[in-house]
């Protein structure tokens, strides 16, 4: 017969003594407590799937599920989208927020997460901003890797767009052989490219990487104009957006760019984004600022203070107007005019500029419009939509 160890025999003696002392009532209380503890845990915690560092895991969520709007599109749902981007940026930069994303190895619990499964529609430009935020956060926080929760419940269109723009690569989610990835014949989007300097090699080849301009019926002049406009938008980021340290740019001085081709809508799209000082903030440092002031005086207003974001849309429109009319003076205004010139050379095209709390839109053969918004997008976003 096997002889127990001395330690185990001591533990048995102690346990038997304790049980003998315990009353029937105290045993009932103990049993009830154990049952309650189990019920509470199973009622609150639900099992979720989490992709993290290339592995699929089952995790439980102990914190709050952060709300994400169903439609992430700056054109049709600006305020909710901009507010989500603001919350996401703050969450990713906060130490607590980052710790929440990192599940413990022992418990496999996640503190809180952004519920991307709620998203029904996402535009290319918003996908670019989200991916840029995650790229930035990854470079800022060492050894941090975000989790992608319940990917199988995400909308297929949203998933494919985020997958192709490189969002999951940034999150270290390896989906190369996954059944979730479906190649779309109607939609093509390029993986986001980021940089610090004006890299002509990257920017000028973006269009040809996406498609052959001649196959879409575009002439060489369109290719030349779009390339020049994109380069000028990137240059604005390089030269002006990160000129001095500011709260927005202290994390990463970079620009991001992507292109998308939608055959069903016959739409070609290019997007440039930076998280710099924005056009309304840098307006008073322009050498053409007196002309901008004259535009405001013509409108019966004083030029806004850079800290005042209530007239950002008007400030962008004034800067664009000065750029287009500055035939005598060179330098900075001309860059904005070239960014907008795509609308003159393409038969049906649109340019949208979002900078801090303002937006500006110009469509071919139509008057430009601008809107003063309530929520900032945290940088400058330029979008060209060209129909083919």
């Amino acid at each position: 017969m096997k002889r127990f160890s001395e330690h185990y025999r001591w533990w048995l003696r102690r346990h038997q003594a304790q049980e003998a002392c315990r009353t029937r009532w105290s045993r009932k209380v103990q049993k009830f407590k154990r049952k309650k503890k189990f019920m509470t845990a199973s009622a609150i915690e639900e099992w979720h799937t989490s992709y993290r560092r290339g592995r699929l895991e089952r995790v439980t969520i102990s914190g709050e599920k952060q709300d994400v709007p169903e439609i992430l599109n700056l054109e049709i749902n600006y305020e909710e989208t901009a507010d989500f981007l603001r919350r996401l940026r703050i969450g990713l930069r906060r130490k607590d927020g980052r710790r929440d994303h990192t599940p413990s190895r022992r418990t496999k619990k996640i503190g809180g997460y952004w519920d991307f499964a709620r998203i029904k529609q996402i535009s290319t430009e918003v996908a670019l901003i989200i991916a840029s935020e995650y790229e930035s956060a990854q470079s800022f926080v060492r050894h941090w890797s975000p989790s992608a929760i319940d990917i199988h419940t995400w909308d297929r269109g949203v998933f494919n767009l985020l997958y192709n723009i490189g969002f999951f690569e940034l999150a270290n989610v390896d989906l190369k052989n996954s059944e979730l990835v479906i190649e779309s014949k109607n939609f093509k989007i390029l993986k986001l490219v980021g940089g610090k300097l004006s890299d002509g090699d990257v920017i000028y080849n973006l269009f040809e990487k996406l498609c052959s301009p001649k196959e879409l019926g575009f002439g060489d002049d369109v290719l030349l104009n779009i390339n020049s406009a994109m380069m000028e938008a990137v240059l604005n980021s390089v030269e002006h957006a990160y000129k001095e340290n500011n709260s927005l740019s202290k994390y990463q001085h970079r620009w991001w760019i992507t292109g998308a081709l939608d055959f069903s809508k016959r739409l070609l799209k290019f997007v440039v984004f930076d998280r710099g000082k924005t056009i309304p903030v840098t307006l008073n440092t322009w050498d053409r600022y007196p002309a901008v002031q004259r535009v405001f005086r013509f409108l019966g207003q004083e030029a806004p203070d850079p800290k005042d974001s209530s007239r950002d849309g008007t400030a962008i429109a004034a800067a664009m107007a000065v750029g287009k009319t500055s035939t005598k003076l060179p330098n900075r205004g001309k860059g904005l005019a070239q960014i907008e010139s795509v609308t003159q050379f393409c038969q049906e095209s649109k340019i949208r500029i979002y900078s801090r709390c303002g937006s500006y839109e110009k469509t071919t053969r139509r008057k430009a419009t601008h809107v003063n918004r309530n929520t900032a997008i945290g940088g400058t976003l330029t979008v060209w939509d060209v129909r083919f």
Partner: protein
Amino acid sequence: MMINIARDFSPYPAGRFMSDGPGSGEEFRDKMLLPALEGGEHVTVIIDGVKGMPVSFMEEAFGGLIRTGRFTYDRLREIMTVSAEAPQYKRYTMMIWDFIKAAKPANAH
């Protein structure tokens, strides 16, 4: 003397200053254009073949010649030609001369 920007400098003209990155207007002006113009020969700049032509590059490369104080608009008209064969580049030749005309010497007030 002929300078083909795409062949002799870069097919990807990009920023204004050298600090902006490779292929800047400042780099083109200082390394190619100024030495050629100071050599005394007539200089023909060919812009065909570049993948893009941002205004920042054009203004700094050509308008910057006036800002050096070594040339005037009339003098540059005599010693320099900007040419383009393909129709899509022709408008840029006019823009370049507009930039030269609008530029002022750095010490002028």
